[in-house]
């Protein structure tokens, strides 16, 4: 009797929702700790944590609405996190004032190359409309991308997924590409990583060097802001 009651409670929707939240947090911090100890690319939290959670949610048969009951509070933290980006801008104001031309051109190049490359590619590669629209903002940091994607008619969830995969790809291809293209300066590497692979790129850039990391974060933030502010205009051009 007691056992079945316990089972009932465990299987109830509320507790499943709670389990989902704990699972998400645990997998994330677990992956982070593992990656700190073993620097293997497939253990990177950006890859390992989502894959683990998807597998668990799938195998435990947790319905999506239940999964989101508490975890949507994690998503709500994206807005305060966006505001927090003010601090790195303030801190690195000296660097920004030192290389205004480089940073501005890098931001403009990254922003437009991201949209134009997608726009051209989806012309030749058949993809459903909701997907191709979600792809336009893929090289922008998640909080900005999810905010901007609405203007293009994209789906925020699909956008988040595309942004995530883009980040992983950027992390993997950057080093051979830099060698091949002879991109050697710290700013070149940093801006390229921040522009193409946002947060994941910034993390990778920090591994390459301190200045690379700082400049990658700055580029990512500026491109994100430019994307959100310009989205209504860009949507007229690219849709």
């Amino acid at each position, binding site marked *: 009797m007691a056992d079945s009651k316990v089972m009932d409670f465990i299987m109830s929707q509320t507790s499943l929702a709670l389990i989902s939240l704990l699972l998400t947090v645990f997998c994330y911090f677990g992956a982070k700790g593992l990656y700190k100890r073993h620097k293997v690319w497939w253990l990177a939290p950006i890859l390992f944590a989502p894959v683990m959670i*998807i597998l668990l949610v799938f195998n435990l048969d947790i319905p999506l609405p239940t*999964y989101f009951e508490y975890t949507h509070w994690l998503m709500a*933290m994206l*807005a*305060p996190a966006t505001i*927090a980006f003010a601090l790195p801008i303030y801190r690195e104001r000296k660097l920004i004032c030192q290389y205004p031309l480089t940073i501005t051109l890098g931001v403009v190049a990254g922003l437009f190359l991201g949209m134009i490359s997608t726009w051209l590619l989806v012309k030749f590669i058949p993809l459903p409309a909701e997907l191709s629209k979600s792809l336009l903002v893929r090289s922008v940091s998640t909080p900005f991308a999810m905010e901007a994607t609405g203007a293009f008619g994209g789906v925020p969830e699909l956008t988040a997924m595309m942004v995530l995969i*883009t980040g992983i*790809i950027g992390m993997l291809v950057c080093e051979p590409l830099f060698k091949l*293209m002879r991109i050697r*300066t710290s700013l070149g590497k940093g801006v390229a990583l921040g522009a193409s692979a946002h947060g994941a790129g910034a993390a990778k850039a920090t591994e390459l060097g301190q200045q690379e990391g700082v400049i990658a974060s700055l580029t990512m933030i500026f491109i994100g802001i430019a994307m959100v502010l310009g989205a209504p205009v860009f949507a007229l051009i690219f849709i």
Partner: protein
Amino acid sequence: MPFLQAAIRRCRHGALLLIQIGLFCLLSLVCHWFATWAHLPIPGSVLGLGILLILLISKLIPERAVQLGAAWLIGELLLFFIPPVISIIKYEGLFEQYGVNIMFTLVIGSICVMVGTGFVVDRVFRFERQLNIKKHARRHVKVA
């Protein structure tokens, strides 16, 4: 009692962190509410970013008042966007059917952005660095 001192320090650190995160959430809520109320074309989060930046530059808020919270929020950004990623379970069919096309688009697109931006910035940076060195030299000549 070094152990107790360490514990107190840790508690204070945790409390400060929580308060600062709370302040970020509050600012975010107020900005979101204001942006919707005033029908602003910019979302509340970006408005909040601008406001905080102005407050920091004008020294109305000292950097260390938001430092801990900002570092935590940015550091754990990935945790906040895991939930929307999980909802791709809903689009399973889409990924099964178009997986190859999606990956192709993403890989080629990412390479374009990285190579293009890197190439442009590499050149512009060398040029601007030269410019800065010259400017610096000129200033020194004047002083001398």
